[in-house]
């Protein structure tokens, strides 16, 4: 019987690998950014899964609610940070893509001299 955590680990690594593969193989600059975002989602799932326990409950004190069997709140806090940082990088990259387009009229990496590698 496969466990929830195993599924989540598998999914997260699949997303990370799909995303990074896209970053390395695509030539369209926007697709590169999309790939990074896919990888980011994968990372977020990976981190959240670290804190998951079987049948875990939300770690919030509320009147009349049991305070046992809570999931680990630390990875959730880390993911919040990671999401915001990911957005900062994405916004900056996309602005850069727009500027590159304004300069060269293309978002194809193979047609921009400095982006071939």
């Amino acid at each position: 019987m496969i466990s929830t955590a195993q599924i989540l680990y598998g999914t997260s690594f699949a997303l990370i690998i799909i995303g990074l593969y896209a970053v390395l193989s695509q030539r369209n600059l926007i697709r590169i950014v999309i790939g990074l975002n896919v990888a980011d989602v994968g990372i977020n799932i990976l981190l959240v899964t670290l804190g998951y326990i079987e049948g875990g409950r939300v770690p919030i004190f509320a009147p009349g609610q049991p305070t046992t069997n809570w999931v680990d709140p630390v990875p959730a806090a880390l993911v919040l940070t990671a999401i915001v940082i990911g957005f900062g990088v994405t916004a900056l990259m996309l602005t850069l893509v727009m500027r590159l387009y304004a300069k060269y009229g293309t978002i194809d990496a193979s047609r921009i001299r400095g982006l071939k590698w």
Partner: protein
Amino acid sequence: MTTWIVLFISVLLITMALAAVFSRSLASAVIILSTLSLFAALLFVLVAAPDVAITEAAIGSALTTVVFVLALYRTKDAPSADSRSPKNMADESGNAARSVQEVPHA
């Protein structure tokens, strides 16, 4: 029970990730990415991380998509009233994607 829902969403997520990365139209890739984030948020609710879910939905799904859409508009040739129609947009991006794919392992 949770396991099966998680499994279902996981399969959905991986499919969407592949679609977002390899779809022909750039516009649909962006929308699929947005949906991917939204389903990831759903996953976070299931694994008891609502704080992450609400942030992922607000930032990953909504705001990132806004910036992506702005980028799509900005990276199109001289935007005119006509080019705003979704059909036209899909065509142009589709062409771009095809021309990329035609190049073999260079």
